[in-house]
């Protein structure tokens, strides 16, 4: 006689279940079970993983959910199981019920009995009344009331086959819920009322050992330490083997006949609930929006064929016959592959979304391997020409794989939610939902929740947790023996019982799901049956999200669009809008020529701050060495500056080849066209594919398959055999084959996808173009959207270096963005109100709404700033113009103004009646005079304190006298010095990086900004010892060292020592006076 577990919570019942679905399915198969259910709390979070695991181990999947149901009062939690083999009716009901339960805007999801009854009219699910139901809770104390409660259910769900009593014996103390006695009573009630009864073990973990983990999860759910809430009664809720379940059946039904009946009823229900993943859940079948949703009537492939062919003249307006033939050939090849895979609708869908985004006048760019497709380029999904850039379609999509390809698109980050809402509107809420993601326990979160479970003091937990960074909870013991920052904790744990226990508990929580949140960029786009295939729940951004995560997309055949917000796109869009507003020029950034010599000249200066992808200190240094001159150089530079190529030591031979220090080795004339762009170094996946193709005669699709196989140790041999055999057969010399194979073998994980690089290079070029031709507007865009890695004050320093004028905050002219203003035949950037520390959004909004103001009292009355904000505005000079003290020789100064506004704002706020107040204000004395004006240094200090930026001038200017005295070199002058020159540099520390070195030692990179540019200094061991206390603490530094030429315009400083600039200043001043 077989048995099936019908009530099983997996780890995806957050803070309740302990075992991951894959492990449950594997164990069930090993125990000889033919089927297994997953019935997580409040959702299908683990259902797809469960089905996938069941298919893999060869057992039948069953899926249900555990939900609270309310009648006039709560009827407790029950399990709802979907019936299978009914073309998804059961699965659909389950999805809809769960979505419905989450739609109530209450803290906890629940269903009303009416909702449940309506959905079950077609008998597609069975409800199990188990030990968490109100029936089970009442039956020991008042069998009569339990019977009444059951009657409520029976009357609501009148049909047969939709209601069963679930008998659970967890071997708890006799007389308690979950005891043998209790289980017998439930069974008796079922028999008396002729309600079907089934047996389960209400499983929440795989083995008895896991019960202890469940205790910790219970504590995390209750948010209370163990001992302060009623714990689980014992460790019996595990996935028991069939024999033990049979014994329980015997014990609760007092007799073999009863036990047999109970088990066969359970098995009958299990049979009914076995799902057919294909017909019930649409397993593996791609789902794309219907033709009508895309606005097409003909065959999707024909539409795709026509659209892409029509676009050839748009993308290649000047192409001559031979080039056109090449384009047509490539296009046909791609279209055939797309048709073969049945992905035409998919491409049309992505193109439709891309077009919608462009119609909203939002910037968009493709990212990743999708840029390798000509179809994507022609449909406007990608902006990079794959033919001229040498990108391969086969790297993106091949007939050898059949999963939906990822087409990722980057959009303006500031408008991402707007796009989501438009996608919902365009395709309808029945076809769209957001993607979710599960965050899981890592060491830090696990130690926090374990500490709370043990009732440790918050402070103690904080102290331990703050040293736990980025490692898995399971590795805690090992980390304790390795990481110096955990040394003290490791020592304490040896002698402290609770701390030692804490370590074990922490390791137990490893990788368990903690909570679900909306994925940062994923949107699921399906057909109108989507909401019957995935349950949804509200997300933080007001749109529904699926309960499935990204790993569930492929099995479910869901089309996932990655719409990622990129701040640089926002900054560039803002720049273009400001150009249009101020210069009245409509600029199509995507259409500007990609070979502008001025742009590359600007990049080669290495002043790359604000330029996408190449502004980091490392990229800046590489720019100095590399000296890019064309678009493809940017692709190369971005691709080379990656962990893989850096580890594979590809940069130096590439640069040496480029600067003609060595003669590039192309190995064989046949390989020269492939390797010429990178001077003989294999940098790109695409190059590897083409080498394979050339030497073995295989297709590019096959070549990409083999490239992927190189990443798996077990498959390398097969690739090698094929390569050697085929290359030899094609007549290549043994020596060449050896050499090329060693390159291929070593290439492994080092290479980079050129399409990724080229897709990134486009915004790199575009941002450099804007910086070159519209620096003022671009600086305004950078300041407004802050896309980079540096603090805003460095962007201001760069603005000054570029000669871009910066205007101070002014309550009549500033807004919540950095506006470009016309100013004496020129343009300038106006500082934004939002930078003032402590100013509130309503204050900013009131100022913008009420502008312009005629005088200070007018401003005070209508903008209603807090006293603090008013004072800060005055200190920053934002009221200067309004108060009439901005002119060249004002009668009053800012100190006078401060006295005045302090009087003004000292009036009690209670009297704020507009009419009366204006009368009172009128009687206020006029601006006083004669107060000592603030010095320039004081003004600068206020700026730094209140905005974190040196607005009126560069911070370092204050020290200029001393720096001249010491003979300090400006960053911009470094490039003119010989190598090994002893120098002193000074500035504001803007970046500190400590990458690990191959030798295992640490090196510290410091970038100092002195207003003329950035000086990059490297501190090795000995130099670090001299001044490590300064390197991470002090903002203003003086560094001594020797220049080190690294390339044409590449120079860095090998640091010897560093000093605190302020301290030096104090000593210097003391000496001077």
């Amino acid at each position, binding site marked *: 006689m077989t048995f099936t577990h019908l009530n099983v919570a997996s780890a995806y019942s957050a803070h309740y279940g302990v075992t991951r679905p894959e492990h449950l399915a594997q164990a069930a198969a090993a125990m000889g079970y033919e089927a297994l259910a997953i019935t997580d709390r409040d959702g299908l979070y683990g259902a797809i993983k469960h089905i996938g695991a069941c298919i893999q181990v060869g057992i039948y999947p069953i899926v249900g959910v555990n939900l609270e149901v309310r009648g006039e009062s709560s009827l407790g939690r029950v399990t709802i199981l979907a019936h299978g083999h009914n073309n998804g009716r059961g699965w659909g009901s389950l999805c809809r019920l769960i979505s419905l339960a989450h739609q109530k805007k209450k803290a906890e999801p629940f269903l009303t009995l009416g909702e449940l009854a309506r959905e079950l009219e077609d008998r597609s699910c069975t409800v199990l009344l188990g030990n968490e139901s109100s029936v089970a809770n009442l039956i020991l104390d008042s069998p009569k009331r339990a019977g009444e409660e059951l009657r409520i259910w029976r009357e609501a769900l009148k049909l047969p086959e939709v209601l069963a009593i679930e008998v659970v014996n967890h071997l708890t103390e006799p007389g308690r819920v979950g005891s043998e006695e209790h289980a017998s009573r439930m069974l008796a009630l079922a028999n008396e009322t002729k309600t079907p009864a089934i047996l389960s073990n209400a499983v929440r973990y795989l083995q008895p050992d896991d019960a202890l983990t469940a205790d910790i999860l219970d504590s995390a759910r209750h948010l209370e330490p163990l001992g302060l809430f009623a714990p689980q009664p014992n*460790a*019996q809720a595990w996935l028991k083997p069939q024999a033990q379940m049979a014994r329980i059946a015997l014990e609760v039904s007092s007799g073999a006949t009863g036990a047999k009946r109970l088990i066969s009823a359970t098995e009958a229900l299990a049979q009914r609930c076995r799902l057919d993943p294909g017909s019930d859940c649409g397993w593996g079948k791609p789902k794309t929006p219907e033709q009508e949703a895309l606005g097409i009537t003909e065959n999707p492939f024909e539409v795709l064929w026509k659209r892409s062919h029509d676009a050839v003249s748009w993308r290649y307006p000047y192409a001559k016959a031979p080039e056109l033939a090449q384009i047509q050939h490539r296009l046909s090849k791609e279209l055939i592959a797309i048709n073969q895979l049945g992905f035409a609708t998919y491409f049309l869908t992505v193109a439709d979304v891309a077009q919608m985004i462009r119609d909203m006048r939002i910037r968009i760019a493709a990212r990743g391997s999708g840029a390798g497709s000509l179809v994507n380029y022609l449909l406007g999904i990608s902006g990079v020409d794959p033919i001229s850039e040498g990108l391969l379609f086969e790297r993106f999509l091949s007939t050898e794989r059949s999963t939906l390809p990822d087409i990722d698109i980057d959009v303006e980050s500031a408008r991402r939610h707007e796009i989501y809402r438009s996608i919902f509107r365009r395709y309808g809420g029945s076809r769209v939902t957001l993607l979710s993601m599960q965050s899981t326990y890592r060491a830090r979160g696990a130690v926090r929740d374990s500490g709370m479970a043990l009732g440790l003091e918050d402070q103690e937990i904080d102290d331990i947790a703050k040293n736990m960074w980025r490692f898995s909870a399971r590795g805690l013991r090992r980390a304790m023996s390795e990481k110096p920052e955990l040394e003290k904790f490791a020592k304490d744990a040896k002698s402290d019982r609770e701390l030692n226990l804490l370590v074990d508990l922490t390791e137990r929580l490893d990788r368990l799901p903690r909570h679900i949140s909306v994925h940062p960029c994923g949107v699921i786009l399906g057909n109108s049956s989507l909401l019957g295939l995935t349950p949804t729940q509200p997300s933080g951004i007001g749109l529904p999200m699926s309960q499935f995560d990204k790993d569930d997309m492929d099995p479910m055949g869901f089309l996932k669009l990655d719409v990622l917000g990129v701040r640089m796109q926002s900054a560039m869009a803002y720049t273009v809008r400001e150009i249009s507003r101020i210069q009245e020029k409509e600029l199509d950034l995507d259409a500007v020529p990609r070979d502008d010599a001025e742009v590359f000249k600007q990049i080669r200066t290495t002043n790359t701050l604000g330029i996408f992808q190449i502004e980091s200190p490392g990229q800046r240094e590489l720019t100095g060495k590399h000296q890019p001159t064309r678009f493809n150089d940017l692709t190369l530079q971005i691709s080379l500056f990656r962990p893989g190529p850096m580890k594979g030591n590809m940069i130096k031979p590439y640069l040496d080849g480029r600067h003609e220090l060595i003669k590039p080795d192309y190995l064989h004339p046949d390989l020269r066209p492939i390797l010429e762009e990178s001077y003989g170094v294999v940098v790109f996946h695409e190059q590897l594919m083409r080498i394979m193709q050339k030497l073995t005669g295989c297709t590019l699709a096959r070549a990409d398959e083999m490239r992927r196989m190189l990443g798996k140790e077990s498959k390398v041999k097969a690739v090698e055999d094929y390569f050697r055999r085929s290359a030899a057969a094609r007549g290549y010399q043994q020596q060449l084959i050896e050499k090329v194979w060693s390159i291929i073998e070593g290439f492994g994980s080092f290479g980079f996808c050129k399409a990724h690089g080229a897709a990134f290079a486009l915004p790199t070029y575009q941002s450099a173009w804007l910086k070159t031709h519209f620096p003022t507007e671009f600086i305004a865009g950078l300041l407004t959207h802050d896309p980079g890695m540096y603090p805003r004050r460095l962007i201001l320093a760069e603005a000054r270096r570029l000669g871009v004028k910066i205007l101070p905050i002014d309550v009549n002219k500033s807004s919540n963005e950095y506006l470009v203003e016309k100013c004496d035949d020129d343009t300038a950037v106006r500082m934004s109100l939002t930078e003032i520390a402590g100013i509130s959004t309503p204050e900013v909004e009131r100022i913008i709404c009420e502008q312009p103001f005629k005088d200070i009292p007018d401003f005070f009355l209508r903008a209603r700033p807090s006293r603090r904000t008013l004072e800060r505005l005055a200190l920053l000079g934002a009221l200067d113009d309004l108060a009439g003290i901005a002119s060249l020789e004002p009668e009053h100064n800012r100190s006078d103004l401060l006295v005045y506004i302090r009087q003004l704002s000292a009036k009690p706020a209670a009297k704020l009646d507009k009419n009366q107040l204006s009368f009172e204000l009128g009687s206020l004395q006029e601006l006083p005079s004669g107060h000592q004006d603030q010095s320039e240094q004081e003004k600068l200090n206020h700026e730094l304190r209140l905005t974190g930026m040196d607005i009126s001038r560069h911070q370092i200017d204050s020290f200029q006298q001393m720096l001249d005295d010491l003979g300090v070199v400006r960053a911009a002058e470094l490039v003119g010095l010989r190598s090994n020159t002893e120098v002193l540099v000074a500035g504001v520390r803007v970046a500190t990086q400590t990458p690990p070195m191959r030798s295992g030692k640490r090196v510290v990179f410091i970038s100092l900004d002195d207003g003329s540019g950035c000086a990059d200094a490297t501190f090795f061991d000995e130099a670090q010892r001299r001044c490590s206390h300064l390197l991470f603490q002090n903002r203003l530094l003086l560094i001594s060292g020797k220049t080190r030429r690294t390339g044409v315009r590449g120079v860095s400083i090998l640091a010897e020592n560093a000093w605190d600039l302020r301290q030096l200043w104090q000593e210097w001043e003391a000496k001077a006076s």
Partner: protein
Amino acid sequence: MQAEKLSGVAVDFDGAPVAFDWRGGHYLAASRPVRWYSRRLWWQEASGAPRGSGAMLVETEMWRLWAASEGSRSLFELRHQMPEDTWEIYPIDS
């Protein structure tokens, strides 16, 4: 009720106690012993909870049964301590 150590416990095939010696009397089970598991407050006593130790830390095996000697018949609770395999007895007033 104070627990007392118990000796001479005989168990059946399922591990259920069928006979034991207590306070000088020899007791035989007079009802089907009901097995149950009570829980332990491991966080107050354990100094570690490595994998595999969970079940023992969380619960203890208990048996409730009527047992009779020559002179008396009463309801007992027997606690089976693992891994020591020792027994304790709690008479239950009834």
